């Protein structure tokens, strides 16, 4: 075949030609868009000048919207947007999370605790000009109580409602079946009745066809492109005051490294991280000019749960949890041998706080800490003692029970969470030293073995709300499944009379201080039980551009987070820096133009050279 190669003389030129050609192909591809890049780069600035310097705050988000209907939305991204579009009855103070006025200015229970009366403000208008009234609120709640399709996302809030009425435009009356202390924490977007009463099937209506969407929150949703962006404009008539940015854009970045790159460039003003920026990303951004890495206490707790013996509501046992864990001493021994500090330093790389009580310190009113004597702080010697007492003696390097079987445990881990795996390795080591075997089972979705009660321990974690009712309720007997393996709201099959009594008591206690006291007792019980032990509270790690955002309210205000707050504080309060806003287009203005021109010139020159050489070659052939 070698002899088929054309005469040598043609080679040097041809070789160059092929090289040139391959380069030119790549350049041509680039050129196709550099040219458009020229007008584009300059466009946003002109646009800004034209409409009087419109300021835009662009937020990079990883999640996509599941639904813009507040009756269906489950994802944090969507519920955060609902918060901005529609006012709730109440809001939470950014300083300490206590309830503050929203659409309601005042709320009062009756003497028998079963009727709550809300005074609805008269200075809130829907964006189509109509007045927002108590009638809208009553209609929203009634819809959720009567239509299963409208109860999908927030039905839990109205489960205990008997009747909701609006005797006057400024008065909303909610009658309850049982006393309920959470009535200033109804996280339900109130929608305009005159718009929503036209909706047919609530389970299929996504509220994403006509824009702008009528609302009364601090922002009005003006545009939405699936998987690309959600645009909102400032509501100039918002009763608390108009937001300082004119426009708020949530832009989808499915890859967090790409989002960080966009922040570095200034294409976005803020990166939330899902759930947080990685330690490496945070470290890389720390020295960056005009970028501030914001780290605040998170709302999640990261815990270990032990299987207390899975059972149904009527007490039927199921699952195969290790019987050794039915002994409180064994459970406590496990937690006594966990070195939380090492986990914080090595696994979370410092971006977390050591765990103690069930409710994270961010929610100061309900945060509880164990006393020195009940504390299960790192103490392997005491752990060994407890195991001896429980009858698990060390034989060789193994703990053996009275039945002669070695103590071997399993732990369910989320394959999607690298922290689970890393901590699993440490647990294996620490419990191994005590003589306990551990198998770490990492699964994409742990819910199947979990709800079948087929685990000994599990990595557990919840996002906590300012009102702790829900995270407390998931450990009550009422949350247990009706049938074995049914999914239910129980977290970990805990069912205890004392705890249940306390739960009922806190729900009926309308005095905040007294209620907090009961909640503390519940946390203390939970801690001692060893059914659940909080290892860490992971921090929220996010970053924003200081040349685009001058100031922004964190929650808690002193040192808190920005994305996914309880309330609209961050985006409502954010003030634009004089430097301007995110350009969003990606063209790097004048430099882009220069480079674009250079590339075009190179391509044209390359192309010209290519054609010229081709002519010469053809000429060679002709000779």
């Amino acid at each position, binding site marked *: 075949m070698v002899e088929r190669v054309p005469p040598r003389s043609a080679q040097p030129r041809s070789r160059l030609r092929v090289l040139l050609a391959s380069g030119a192909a790549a350049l041509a591809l680039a050129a196709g868009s550099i040219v458009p890049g020229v007008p584009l780069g300059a466009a946003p600035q002109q646009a800004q000048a034209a409409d009087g310097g419109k300021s835009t705050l662009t937020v990079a988000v990883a999640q996509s919207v599941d639904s813009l209907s507040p009756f269906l939305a489950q994802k944090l991204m969507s519920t955060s947007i609902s918060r901005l579009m529609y006012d709730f009855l109440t809001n939470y103070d950014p300083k300490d999370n206590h309830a503050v006025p929203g659409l309601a200015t005042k709320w009062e229970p009756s003497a028998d605790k079963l009727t709550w009366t809300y005074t609805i403000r008269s200075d809130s208008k829907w964006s189509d000009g109509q007045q927002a009234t108590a009638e809208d609120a009553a209609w929203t709640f009634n819809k959720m109580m009567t239509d299963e399709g409208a109860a999908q996302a927030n039905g*839990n809030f109205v489960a205990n409602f008997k009747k909701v009425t609006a005797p006057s435009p400024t008065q909303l009356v909610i009658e309850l079946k049982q006393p309920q202390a959470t009535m200033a924490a109804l996280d339900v977007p109130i929608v305009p009745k005159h718009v929503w009463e036209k909706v047919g099937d609530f389970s299929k209506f996504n509220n994403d066809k006509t824009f702008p969407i009528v609302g009364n929150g601090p922002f009005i949703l003006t545009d939405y492109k699936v998987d690309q962006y959600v645009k909102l404009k400032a509501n100039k008539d918002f009763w608390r005051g108009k937001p300082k940015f004119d426009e708020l854009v949530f832009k989808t970045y499915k890859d967090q490294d790409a989002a960080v790159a966009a922040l570095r460039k200034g294409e976005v003003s803020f990166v939330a991280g899902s759930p947080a920026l990685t330690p490496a990303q945070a470290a890389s951004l720390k020295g960056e000019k005009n970028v501030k890495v914001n780290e605040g206490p998170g709302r999640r707790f990261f815990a270990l749960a032990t299987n207390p013996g899975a059972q149904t509501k009527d007490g039927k046992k199921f699952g195969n949890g290790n019987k050794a864990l039915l002994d409180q001493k064994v459970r406590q021994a496990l937690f006594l041998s966990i070195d939380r500090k090492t986990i914080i330093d090595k696994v979370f790389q410092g971006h977390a706080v050591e765990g103690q009580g069930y409710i994270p310190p961010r929610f100061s009113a309900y945060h509880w800490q164990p006393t020195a004597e009940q504390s299960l702080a790192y103490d392997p010697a005491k752990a060994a003692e407890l195991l001896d007492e429980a009858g698990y003696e060390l034989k060789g390097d193994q703990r053996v029970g009275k039945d002669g079987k070695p103590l071997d445990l399993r732990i369910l881990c989320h394959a999607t969470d690298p922290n689970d795996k890393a901590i699993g390795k440490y647990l294996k080591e620490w419990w191994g030293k005590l003589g306990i075997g551990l198998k770490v089972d990492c699964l994409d979705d742990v819910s199947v073995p979990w709800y079948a009660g087929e685990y000994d321990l599990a990595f557990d974690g919840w996002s906590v709300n300012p009102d702790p009712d829900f995270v407390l309720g998931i450990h009550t007997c009422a949350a247990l499944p009706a049938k074995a393996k049914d999914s239910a709201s129980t977290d970990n099959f805990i069912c205890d009379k004392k705890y249940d009594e306390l739960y009922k008591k806190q729900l009926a206690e309308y005095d905040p201080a007294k209620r907090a006291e009961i909640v503390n007792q519940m946390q203390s019980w939970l801690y001692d039980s060893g059914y659940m032990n909080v290892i860490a509270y992971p921090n929220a790690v996010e970053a924003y551009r200081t040349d685009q955002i001058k100031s922004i309210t964190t929650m808690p205000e002193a040192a808190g987070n920005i994305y996914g707050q309880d309330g609209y504080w961050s985006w409502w309060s954010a003030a634009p820096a004089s430097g301007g806003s995110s350009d969003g287009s*990606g063209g790097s203005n004048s430099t882009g133009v220069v480079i674009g021109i250079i590339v075009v010139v190179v391509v044209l020159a390359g192309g010209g050279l290519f054609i010229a050489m081709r002519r010469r070659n053809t000429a060679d052939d002709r000779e």
Partner: protein
Amino acid sequence: MTADSTPALVQIADADTDGPAQSGPSAAHGPRARNTKAYLQYVATKIAGAAVSLFAVLVTSFFLFRLIPSDPVKQMTGGRPVSAEQLQSLRHQFGLDQPMWQQFTSYVGDALTGDFGTSFQFHAPVIDKITEALPATLLLTGTSYVLYTALGIWLGTRTAWRNGSMSDRFNTAFALTLYSVPSFWLGLLLIIVFAVGIGPIPGMFPTGGLESGNETGFAYVLDVAHHLVLPVITLVAVGYAQTLLVMRSSLLDEMGSDYLTTARAKGLRDDVVRRKHAVPNAMLPTFTLMFVNLGHVVAGQILVETVFSWPGLGGLFYQALSVPDLPLVQGLFFVFATAVILANTLADVLYPLLDPRVGR
């Protein structure tokens, strides 16, 4: 499918009895009526085969995703304060409380009428979600497909013709290097270098997405083209080696043929010998590859779509799988498989027209 016909094609080609005259579609000859009838029969069998495959896919997709040990309702509401009643109500609405056989029969029944149900997480018809994301995917993978196929054929031809030369070695090695690079990594690198800018290189392109969201008319088209550059470069860079290698090796096979010597002996220019004689004969294996790749155009590119936040089917499939949003994954799986089956069937149907030896 193509897999059946290709080996036969290669075997016959190896016999190397063909001359330049048989190189094009015009080569069909012989008693016309008999040939047409045989061809139609051949086409009918291929189409019937495709229909059977499609039905098998339809059935498989139902069971395949139910093997994932996962609870869609629990996964969807994960971490939110929902009551047991809400979970039950969702379960009922999704039909997950029905016995498996009942779910299956209603799925097949609906699917045969073109209804793939309603997405669990998006509360919208599966067909709507797919048609919503399809254009973005077709734009991205379609553009890259055309470019990497053209680039691959062109460079494949050049490198084979200059076999053993510096440019051959360079181009082949370069293509293979890019081929082995993970696409998401290359994409991220391009973002850092050409979107953000590094050192003297300014950021020229957007970091992600399909559009800026504030352009209309022609400016919108330019805006989308601007966003298209980096993802397309990524896909072309990673993809063209395949075509290049197939084209190169099949042309190398042809280069030993006597008809090329004949052509040269006639005094034809080297370019003409290559273009008119060698390349058409060497194209057949490349055609096979082109059709295989064509089928995958629809499936999108999950990794590249993720890195560049491209709102296409790949990303939708990923979102659907992570729940799993059963109606949506079933629908997408069916569409992806259909595209591959159709592309292969199309290849089978076209082959006899390109090369009359096939399907005889």
